[in-house]
């Protein structure tokens, strides 16, 4: 007991430590939270000098866009209900109704269904309900709230097209890089040869390359690819420049060094006795990989998939140089907004676009916090 008492810290140190932590949390959250608040206010409020004007939005209320107490209560209740359902009820439902072999498919379907229900309830049912309550109780709005900028960005400026492009590129990158990466990661983790070592070192060197170096290599080839590939493919040789598919392959390759390092460290944590046992039972290497190792590898694959997703989703350099204006993904498309950011309305629209890009990432951290942390530390375990 005495050692525990001795390890206890003086109150002053605890206060300093807690205060520092609070300071860091505010610092971490503030820029993102603040642009989220700005994006739902009229331009006059969003760039007001008084911070309380930005939060409460008097000019926005004056335009007739505001939330009453009943609206806020409905939003909190609905949001809480949705999160509670996702965390407590949904996993149980999937576990009960999906046969064991089809778990990933079941999860995807369940999540899609869940999203549809939440969107329907959140955007159609709840507002109606809140409106009825407001009318009945004659409540006045207390906080300014407008979706006009989101409407302008997504509908008028066709940001949904960029969203679709982003979705195509990220899905492609995650699927291909996981397929190729798990094979290589498994091979590397089960081979102690010199060749495997040199491959891993090569991958480490490749990981350090600035991406602009590689793009400088792709650009001339991609622009002229129709002529270069004509001898091989005949008349319908494609111009790779501006093709989402080409960008997917490029991002997969750039991501490959990181992916195989990470997957390798996950595979190494699975004992080699497991595949030896499968081999004794008459499996080939590939069968052992498919039927014995992969089923226990899902946590590692999900974690690596998250990081592939982040790379593809967050990329600016490669997508902005290798894609046309017409099929831009979301992140480079935002450059178009801040290049013509002349009026405050334009600025708030750019902010709304930025918040739209951040929202999926926010949900991602919420759902996969543990996997992200384990992924970050998996790389460090080796030192």
């Amino acid at each position, binding site marked *: 007991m005495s*050692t525990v008492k*001795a390890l206890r810290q003086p109150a002053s140190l*605890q206060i300093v*430590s*807690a205060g*520092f*932590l609070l300071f860091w949390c505010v610092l*971490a*959250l503030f*820029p*993102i939270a*603040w642009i989220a608040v*700005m994006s739902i206010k009229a331009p006059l409020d969003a*760039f007001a*000098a008084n911070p309380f004007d930005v939060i409460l939005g008097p000019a926005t209320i004056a335009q007739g866009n505001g939330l009453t107490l009943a609206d806020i209560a409905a939003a909190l209740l609905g949001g809480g209900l949705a999160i509670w359902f996702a965390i407590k009820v949904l996993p149980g439902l999937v576990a009960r109704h999906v046969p064991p072999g089809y778990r990933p498919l079941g999860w995807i379907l369940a999540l899609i269904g869940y999203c549809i229900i939440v969107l329907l309830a959140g955007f159609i049912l709840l507002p109606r309900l809140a409106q009825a309550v407001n009318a009945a109780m004659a409540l006045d709005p207390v906080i300014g709230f407008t979706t006009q900028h989101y409407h302008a960005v997504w509908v008028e400026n066709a940001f949904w097209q960029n969203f679709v492009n982003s979705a195509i590129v990220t899905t492609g990158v995650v699927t291909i890089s996981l397929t190729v990466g798990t*094979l*290589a990661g498994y*091979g590397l983790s*089960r081979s102690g*040869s010199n060749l*495997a070592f040199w*491959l891993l070192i*090569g*991958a*480490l060197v*490749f990981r*350090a*390359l*600035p991406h*602009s*170096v*590689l*793009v*400088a290599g*792709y*650009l001339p*080839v991609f622009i002229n690819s129709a002529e270069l590939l004509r001898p091989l493919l005949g008349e319908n040789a494609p111009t790779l420049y501006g093709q989402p598919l080409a960008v997917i*392959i490029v991002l997969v*390759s*750039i991501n*490959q*060094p990181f992916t*195989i390092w990470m997957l390798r460290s996950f595979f190494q944590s699975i004992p080699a006795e497991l595949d030896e046992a499968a081999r004794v039972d008459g499996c080939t*290497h*590939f069968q052992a990989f498919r039927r014995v190792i992969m089923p226990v590898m899902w946590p590692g694959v999900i974690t690596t998939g998250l990081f592939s997703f*982040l790379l593809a*989703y*967050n990329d*600016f350099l490669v997508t902005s140089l290798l894609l046309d204006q017409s099929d831009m993904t979301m*992140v480079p498309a935002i*450059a178009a907004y*801040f290049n013509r950011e002349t009026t405050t309305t334009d600025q708030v629209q*750019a902010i709304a676009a930025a918040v739209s890009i951040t929202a999926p990432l926010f949900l991602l*951290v919420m759902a996969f*916090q543990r996997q*992200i*942390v384990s992924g*970050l*530390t998996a790389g*460090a375990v080796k030192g």
Partner: protein
Amino acid sequence: MRFRTFAAFVAPSLLLMVLFIAAPLTSVFVQSFFVTQPQIQRVETERCTAGFLEQQCTTEIKNVPVLDENGAVVTTTRFVGLDNYRAVVRPDRAFAALSAWDWQALMSIDFWKALRFTLTFTLVTLPLVVGLGLAIALAVNNTMRSIRGPVIFVSLLPFIVTPVIGALSIRWLFVGDGILTRAMEAWSGTEIAMFAQGWTIELLMLFYRVWHVAPFAFVIFYAGLQTMNRETLEAAMVDGASRFERLRYVIVPHLMPLIVFVSLIHLMDAYRVFEEVVGFRSQAHVISLQWLTYDLLQPDDAGNRAVSRASASAMLTMIGIVILLVPLLRKSWRDHKGAR
């Protein structure tokens, strides 16, 4: 595992890496010694207009690009040696500036400007990231278990947010009528323009990068603290080590491999600084090496991309990466030999 099986497992990944990383790298290396230009020919044309007594004719000599039968511009590629590198580094101007001790003149050359910023950026952010990450890890380790989850969630946000968007979100706080600029103006009573001069932008860029990477350092150090041996700490206490001495002589040495790991990753990533220049739109004041290559690759007003010069600038950027990698590779080679 036999070689054939190993090869079959690794082949797809290896093919991708060779095709899309190794091959472009060599092609950039080769490109940096060549220049591709449209073939120009001088065309003498005589234009005659009806005059009063006789036709008035003028001959003019024009430089026009040669077209092939499809109407495409014919280009020639020729070997120029180190000319592309000279065009990027401008050794003549740099030497003149250096011998005259003229820092301003040296900084007017894009390459040196970018190099100066990239190196400052990398070296200044490194201790800040490690220090802040360590401080957060220690503070989180110090709190109640129940609030650790939410704190980690909030801390991950700056790390996960798209770099360009993160930089933009900080930019919007500090633009002319941003909330923090207003607050600083009210507090100091003077007009403040954060984006009118280089050093304030640079300060914001440094702040952004530390804000963005510190969570990564924090998560890794925090994981390291969980494996900390309690008995060693207690032994140090029995020996009369103060709180600070325990941190200095027990905890930091325990975390040392992780500190080295975080530093190396951070050096590599900070050296490639690029998104900050885009997000803060600082190109008029502050540019980085990778942004220089990016800018050369962007089509100019006539739609041409300076691919050769971009290759030269890319190869020059690589030199820094190689210097960073050498100690890392030597260490892993020693580990590998030690393991056998």
